């Protein structure tokens, strides 16, 4: 892998390029199918199940995993943890790409994607939490774009524009945190309107809080996870500052993640107590709930703590990957598994392979674009002509 990344830019028949090429080709065909034949042709969505994996994975998981951008920039610029500075740009880039792909995925999911600006230009449905999500995502995507632009401007050699943007750093970071808090929590609050459809173990008035806290966990874990991958595949693109962070980022972010996970575990227990839903734990859904809370919250909290104490970077990295998987499990549970739990099995949803195909296509697109950018723009290294900001 690392050999072919060295010759990046020239299309070669490396395994990565072949696999990515096939996925993009199939994705292209599915895209044509989706937009000429309608949702019915490619999805298993139904009147009982209006939301499938394009919402459960592409939107809910996508937005949560893209939280690394606001978490890292807040840590470095607002909380003054300057020693993680080199982690900011890759995290902002992943955040920006993440949100851009979320918006792309929404074009597949909604019935009339060309009307996506309607909530802003036609009629504002301000009583809807989805409106809040839409407004914040749109604004935050813009913020991320501006936050990332210095890398592109350095690449293009536009010094003046770059220095103007850099002056806005703090403002943009604060704006980003506010918007992220709002839409991350609102994604959870979307389900508040359906207490009769979501299983009581997952339905709680705390849903917005849970979504926000898990987004922070996801952000921290993604930064570790992503830095692991980058160090593996793009280390030749890194400068000394980035190479030096190979261990400090997992240690620092792992420690933070251990704390937040522990806190999240506690408020999960509080949620169960407040809703008094203990008796559901004895059911099948209860067992699955315990898997989520013990296996994907308590366990990684513990493993992160051990990893940090022993300075065991490998353990921290595996824990990060496990935690990211836990976020996927959580969002799937709320959107798909525990949603419509009252319906008979015959009415439940399972994704069509083409839905999965589109999701894989979108993720692949993200990886390809990430690779394109980090091999060209100063993301994993400081541009020689510019100081760290």
């Amino acid at each position, binding site marked *: 892998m690392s050999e072919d990344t060295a010759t990046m830019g020239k299309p070669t028949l490396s395994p990565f390029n072949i696999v990515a090429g096939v996925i993009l080709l199939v994705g292209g065909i599915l895209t044509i199918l989706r937009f000429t034949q309608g949702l019915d042709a490619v999805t298993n969505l139904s*009147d009982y199940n209006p939301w499938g994996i394009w919402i459960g994975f592409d939107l809910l998981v996508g937005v949560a995993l893209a939280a690394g951008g606001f978490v890292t920039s807040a840590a470095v610029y607002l909380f003054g943890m300057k020693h993680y500075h080199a982690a900011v740009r890759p995290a902002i880039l992943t955040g920006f790409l993440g949100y851009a792909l979320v918006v792309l995925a929404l074009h597949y999911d*909604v019935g009339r994607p060309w009307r996506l600006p*309607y909530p802003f230009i036609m*009629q504002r449905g301000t009583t809807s939490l989805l409106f809040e999500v839409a407004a914040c995502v749109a604004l935050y995507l813009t913020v991320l774009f501006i936050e990332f632009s210095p890398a592109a401007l350095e690449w293009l050699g536009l010094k003046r524009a770059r220095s103007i943007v850099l002056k806005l750093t703090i403002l943009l970071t*604060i704006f980003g945190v506010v918007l992220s808090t709002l839409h991350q929590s609102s994604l959870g609050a979307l389900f508040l309107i359906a207490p009769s459809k979501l299983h009581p173990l997952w339905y709680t008035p705390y849903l917005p809080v849970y979504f926000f806290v898990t987004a922070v966990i996801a952000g921290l874990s993604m930064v570790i996870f992503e830095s692991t991958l980058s160090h593996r595949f793009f280390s030749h693109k890194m400068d000394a500052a980035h190479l030096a962070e190979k261990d400090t980022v997992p240690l620092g972010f792992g420690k933070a993640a251990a704390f937040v996970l522990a806190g999240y575990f506690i408020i999960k227990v509080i949620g169960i107590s407040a809703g008094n839903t203990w008796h559901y734990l004895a059911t099948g859904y209860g067992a699955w709930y315990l898997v989520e809370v013990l296996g994907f919250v308590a366990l990684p909290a513990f493993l992160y703590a051990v990893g940090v104490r022993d300075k065991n970077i490998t353990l921290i990295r595996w824990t990060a990957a496990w935690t990211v998987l836990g976020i996927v499990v959580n969002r799937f549970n709320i959107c798909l598994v525990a949603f419509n739990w009252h319906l008979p099995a015959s009415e439940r949803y399972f994704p069509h392979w083409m839905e999965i195909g589109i999701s894989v296509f979108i993720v692949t697109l993200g990886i390809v674009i990430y690779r394109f950018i980090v091999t060209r723009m100063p993301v994993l290294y400081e541009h020689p002509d510019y100081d760290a900001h």
Partner: protein
Amino acid sequence: MSLSRRKFLGWIGAAGMTAAAGRKASAATTHHFEGYPESMAVLHDTTFCIGCRRCEGACNTVNELPAPEVPFTDLNVLEKQRRTTSKAYTVVNQKPGNASGPLFVKNQCNHCLEPACASACFVNAFTKTKEGAVVYDASVCVGCRYCMIACPFEIPTYEYDSAFSPRIMKCTMCHPRVLEGKLPGCVESCPTEALIFGKRDDLLNIARQRITRRPNNYVDHIYGEREMGGTSWLYLSGMPFETIGMRMDLGVTPAPELTAGALGAVPMVVGIWPVLLTGIYAMSKRKEKIAAEEKAQALATALADADAQATAKMDAAMEKAKQEKATAIEKAVKEALEAEAKARAEIEAEAEAAAAAPPQEAPDEDDKDD
């Protein structure tokens, strides 16, 4: 939803989540929307329903929906449980019932007083009209299908098979016909008294009278009077409502209240976060500044120390140099003196030698001169 959770929700909305949302939170706790006065409704008395499916046929006709796969006269479909679809705004389902035979219940949009669908839609595509109907405007709909997620009665459906103009499809309570002074299609076609159209308040009275007059025929509950804050479609049943497929666990909280707390938190976050974050930023900046100052101070002290040391060294060196110089002078003087002494001694010695040795010529000469 249990009463305790509802209470808890209200409590969260009112106190827990937000203080700034006073407006919304208090709205959530004290406000109770009774529906538009004089608004119209339909009473569905399931004890009169014979399962003839004429309402389904009429609905299909007046709404110009596509022809059904099985004609509306075929009653075999009743046994299979059906739901509303994008091609059928209403369906009649047969339920096991009791000894006296099966029961039938018609299902369609309940035209909630405070509709979940309307509260959920992010382009306000739904409107609760003052006549009672909840109507949908396809010209703004984006197709996010959040209304379908939100509706507790699982009514809205979607035209998934349409690539370019998919719409949400649901009962309109025949709003256009009602505006023209006509009855809704289904009500008009009903051969029994299973469906009656009228002012909601009147219908509630009629329903109550029916229950009072024949208490053995009815369960003492008017479904829709309070469910989800009340609906414009009311039901009477001779069997517990659960047994005819109607959920009794929905509670009486209108849908908008479920999200009021979360929406109320928005101004709170927008108000407090920037202040807090700026504060944190200022603190970390200040910490940095202090650290920088301390560093500068340390540097200054170090420099001063170094200076002092250097001066001391210099002084020492000067002293040494002075001493050295003095010694050197002394030495030089001494040497000079010594050299002089030596020179003098030499001269003297010479002179002595000259005096002691042959006193031949020179003294003579001297003498001669004398």
